[in-house]
């Protein structure tokens, strides 16, 4: 039976982890490879790097991080942040990334997703959607949730899948950082509207939130950062909690 996935996400800036696990036994908490190895051992089902490097001078650093991680970790790796061209995707895949997540570029130029899926296959194209509830509908926001686009998130997700997205990474922007749980109506609306797996993200504060993302949000996977990085919960605790709630999990 297919299992629900738990995906920890690491923010990487200039080749260094800026938001990651902060355990005493880490020699270098800023080393993405060491963090990745830790999550690999801890039983994470996949790993996600979000490159938040602002300066274009340092954008090459992520390729080195991905290459080094791929040498050490034999688990699926998704990389997002600043993916704007087919060449960006090619370089990330060649470095050892399995999937690439496209966010702003998909909103600005939906055809880019079609080209990317045709070129590299739907299995490696994740479209990342940041959305909030606006009245009784769901709208896409860009620039960290500050800029409204007027685009309906459910319609957009459906369109992206039609263009060849193999997976949707859906962030509840109105919940991000709040620790009050996913926007479940949004998550369910998108999950039920598309044929591909949806990863729920944004707002996780407790293990019950992870459960809700799957059972009520109908997501196939849950992505979380803070609850794992700050050691609030371990991956194993999360998995056992979800399994106890009746969700099939991979427990080693």
């Amino acid at each position, binding site marked *: 039976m297919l299992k629900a*996935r738990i995906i920890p996400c690491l923010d990487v800036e200039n080749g260094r982890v800026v938001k990651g696990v902060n355990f005493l036994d880490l020699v270098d908490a800023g080393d993405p490879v060491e963090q990745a190895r830790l999550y690999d051992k801890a039983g994470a089902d996949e790993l996600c790097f979000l490159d938040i490097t602002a300066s274009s001078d340092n954008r090459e650093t992520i390729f080195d991080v991905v290459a080094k991680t791929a040498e050490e970790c034999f688990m699926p790796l998704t990389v997002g942040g600043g993916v704007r061209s087919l060449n960006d995707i090619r370089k990330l895949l060649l470095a050892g990334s399995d999937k690439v997540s496209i966010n702003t570029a998909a909103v600005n130029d939906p055809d880019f997703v079609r080209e990317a899926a045709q070129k590299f296959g739907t*299995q490696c194209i994740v479209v990342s959607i940041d959305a909030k509830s606006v009245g009784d509908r769901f709208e896409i926001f860009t620039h960290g949730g500050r800029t409204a686009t007027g685009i309906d998130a459910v319609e957009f997700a459906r369109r992206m899948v039609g263009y060849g997205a193999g997976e949707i990474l859906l962030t509840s922007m109105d919940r991000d950082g709040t620790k009050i749980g996913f926007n479940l109506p949004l998550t369910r609306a998108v999950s039920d509207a598309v044929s591909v*797996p949806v990863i729920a993200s944004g707002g996780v504060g407790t293990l019950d939130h992870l459960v809700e993302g799957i059972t009520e949000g109908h997501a196939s996977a849950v992505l979380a950062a803070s609850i794992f990085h700050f050691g609030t919960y371990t991956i194993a605790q999360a998995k056992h909690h979800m399994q106890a709630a009746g969700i099939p999990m991979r427990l080693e």
Partner: protein
Amino acid sequence: MPSSETIAIIDYGSGNLRSAAKAFERAIRESGSGQRVVVTNDPDQVRRATRIVLPGVGAFGDCLAGLSAIDGIVEALRDAVLDRGRPFLGICVGMQLLASSAQEYGDHTGLDWIAGHVELLRPDDPSLKIPHMGWNTLHMVNQHPIFEGLEDGEHVYFVHSNHLEIQYPQDRIAITNYGGEITAMVGRDNIVGTQFHPEKSQAAGIHLLQNFLTWKP
């Protein structure tokens, strides 16, 4: 221990060869089997290799076109695998390419090493997502040395929208379930193939690669 064996991973422009190469290097290092890994599109190097790996991600037609575009590579593969019995491993679309035929964005003829047909997954539960993506359990249905040390129900990582409908049940050595039974592994003579990605399946995947490295069909 150094070995004169060479593992050739076929490079035909499909997907992430770095992961496959690194996973084999790890498997070799951990088992001390000492083989050398080459990533190659050179037919001569394929002929000289002692073991051959055909990876593959994406669409069947694209992979087939990519492979066929390399002058002499299909002949070299036939020569090494079918005529001289070199151990062969196909991964994901690299396994599907072994089929007789496929239907995905048009009809295609495969290598026809394993009798069967590749077609779109149609789970009997319509709420199941396509691609079949994530960790699913491996169930052995025919005995094979490649399974040594692995338990029934081991988790491995899948990502695919098509599957191989096998013609002869004895060619199917493992299945998984996703709205019905899916061929997870094929095996016949010196040929094995995995629908899942051993190079992405953590310890279980590395173990399976180690078994392939020491397999004497």
